[in-house]
């Protein structure tokens, strides 16, 4: 049996879900014979490869970069997993939705106590007017709520998926857990 190609991506989120993923710890080694991590912020592959079996998505869709990334990832992934509350519900990143991107940037970059207050030009991704959960932009196959989902939960999800089963998460995690 060929190894399952697994990827993870990180959009607008705190990276806590990736931390939780890493907390799977030695159990990841147990899976090593079965999976190959083809792309992840923790393994540094520049471009997202084609024909990925499972992609774990952390974070909400917040910028033009996220938007383009998630479209590409979706097109190249068989099973897309929304990992954690930011991906599932836009969570904390969406709390900026009450402000316009302009007001937000001005508040951050032009704050009176800044040493050299100026708005960024071309150096950071452009903010979308609203942060959205992943499933409002592309189709999501598996939802794993939690902030972050526990390492046990993520291990369970991954093992089920690589064995070709859909995980049943109803008693394993919840929004905000």
């Amino acid at each position, binding site marked *: 049996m060929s190894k399952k190609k697994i990827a993870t991506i990180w959009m607008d989120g705190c990276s806590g879900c990736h931390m939780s993923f890493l907390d799977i710890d030695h159990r990841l080694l147990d899976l090593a014979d079965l999976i190959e991590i083809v792309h992840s912020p923790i393994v540094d592959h520049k471009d997202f490869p084609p024909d990925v079996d499972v992609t774990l998505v952390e974070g909400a869709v917040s910028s033009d970069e996220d938007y383009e990334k998630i479209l590409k990832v979706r097109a190249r992934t068989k099973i897309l997993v929304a990992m954690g509350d930011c991906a599932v519900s836009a969570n904390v990143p969406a709390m900026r*939705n009450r402000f316009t991107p302009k007001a937000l940037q001005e508040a951050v970059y032009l704050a009176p106590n800044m040493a050299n207050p100026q708005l960024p030009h071309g150096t950071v991704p452009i903010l979308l007017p*609203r942060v959205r959960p992943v*499933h409002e932009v592309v189709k999501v196959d598996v939802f794993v709520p939690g*902030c972050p989902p526990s390492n046990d939960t993520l291990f369970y999800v991954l093992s089920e998926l690589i064995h070709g089963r859909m995980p049943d998460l*109803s008693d394993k995690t919840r*929004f905000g857990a």
Partner: protein
Amino acid sequence: MSRVVTLKINGQDVSGREDETVLQVARENGIEIPTLCHLEGLSNVGACRLCLVEVKGVSRLLPACVTRVSEGMEVTTHSERLERYRRMIVELLFSEGNHVCSVCVSNGHCELQDTAIQLRLDHIGMPYRFPVRQVDASHSRYGLDPNRCILCTRCVRVCDEIEGAHTWDIMGRGINSQLITDMHTPWGESETCTSCGKCVQICPTGALFIKGKSVAEMTKRPDFLPYLAMMRNRKNGS
């Protein structure tokens, strides 16, 4: 004394007094029906629609909280269709406000969150509306975060029916409905609020909270209510 009637709930033979509601009889028999606006000790408004049940011979779905039991009634509290509707109602509630469980004082002790889990919701299928709502932190002891308010009106009712102050009410209508104190003035400046805190204790979400509580620290204690309601009824001679 009212008559005792027998009926079937989910095929199970049960009995209740004819002045009891389907919800009461179901709960007495260990059958859980989800509710968010109902609370023992307050009047019923039948507004959240989560407790809708099927009754044989009635084409409409009936809210269990206000439907009285009757002899020979056959009630179904859980069906594929009811569960689907309930999930959609909870999804509508999540999409209507800004519910960020992970940073909410009521995380883990929230009736909305619990209901979502009970209904096995893993995401919200309705587009989030992301309304802009101002937090009212003007009261010295309590806070109101309308982003977490589901307009169940429990606070309005407890304030009116039990405390007797009627500080809370709803302004506007439809999707623009909003919880207010007095003339839409800051809570801390209310002329009528007695700061009794009953509204905070019975709020199903983290919309009303005690100041100084951090994430997941706000546990509510609504169990005083049936007792107060009973005492109040006794005084009113009913």
